[in-house]
């Protein structure tokens, strides 16, 4: 199991309510873009903060990009006090997003999210439409650069037929 799979597996096992968004959602839909962080959109409820921290706590999440050796603890109270967090864990960079530009929060992303099977890890991934909407709204150079491929993927995916097990191959 890879690092990000460990994170996703822990989140799924602890019944955290989350959706894979951002570049890894694009990758799930067939994009060739690459990233070094995993973005997830999470439901902002106290129960979910607990489940998320039960899942990722053992992987020592801490805010990233802090100066020097500054150590800032990250726990369910931190989750309750903010919305979007850029973290680093023992298994890589993890961004927890309570809200996304152009989309909204977990509830909005859930509307057309798709269920995927990552080698036994069952989780949700944002639809390609949602990924495109969020990237158009974020409008950073890297988002703009990713859009031609994502829009082509939308068109290519329409040609694909339903697969035998409901998953892509």
């Amino acid at each position, binding site marked *: 199991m*890879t*690092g*990000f*799979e460990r994170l996703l597996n822990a989140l799924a096992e602890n019944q955290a309510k989350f959706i894979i968004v951002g570049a*890894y959602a694009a*990758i*799930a839909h*067939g*994009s*060739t873009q*690459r*990233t*070094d962080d995993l973005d997830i959109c999470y439901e902002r409820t106290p129960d979910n903060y607990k489940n998320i921290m039960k899942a990722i706590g053992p992987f020592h999440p801490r805010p990233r990009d802090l100066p020097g050796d500054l150590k800032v603890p990250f726990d369910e109270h931190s989750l309750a006090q903010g919305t979007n967090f850029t973290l680093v864990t023992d298994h*890589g960079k993890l961004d927890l997003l309570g809200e996304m530009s152009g989309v909204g929060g977990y509830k909005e992303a859930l509307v057309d999210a798709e269920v*995927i*099977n*990552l*080698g036994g890890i069952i989780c949700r*991934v944002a639809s390609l439409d949602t990924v495109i909407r969020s990237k158009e709204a974020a409008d950073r150079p890297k988002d703009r650069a990713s859009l*031609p*491929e994502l*829009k*082509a*993927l*939308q*068109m*290519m*995916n329409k*040609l*694909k*037929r339903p697969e035998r097990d409901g*998953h*892509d*191959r």
Partner: protein
Amino acid sequence: MDAQTEKELRELIDNPPKGSAVAAAKAYGVDLYSVLENLKLTVAERFQRAEQERLFVEHLRAGGQKAGL
């Protein structure tokens, strides 16, 4: 992906309708054949490939830092 779908996708990539998203991506320089290869994989395989590449880049970065680059 079945052979017929692949054939149709190759045709779309080779001869995209003018003004379409596929034509725009081609003009932008997107390697749509790599995208097509990705579409042949399962979602799990796509994740694993992306993860392997991420770890490789991290390994290179760490090597560069160790070497003082």
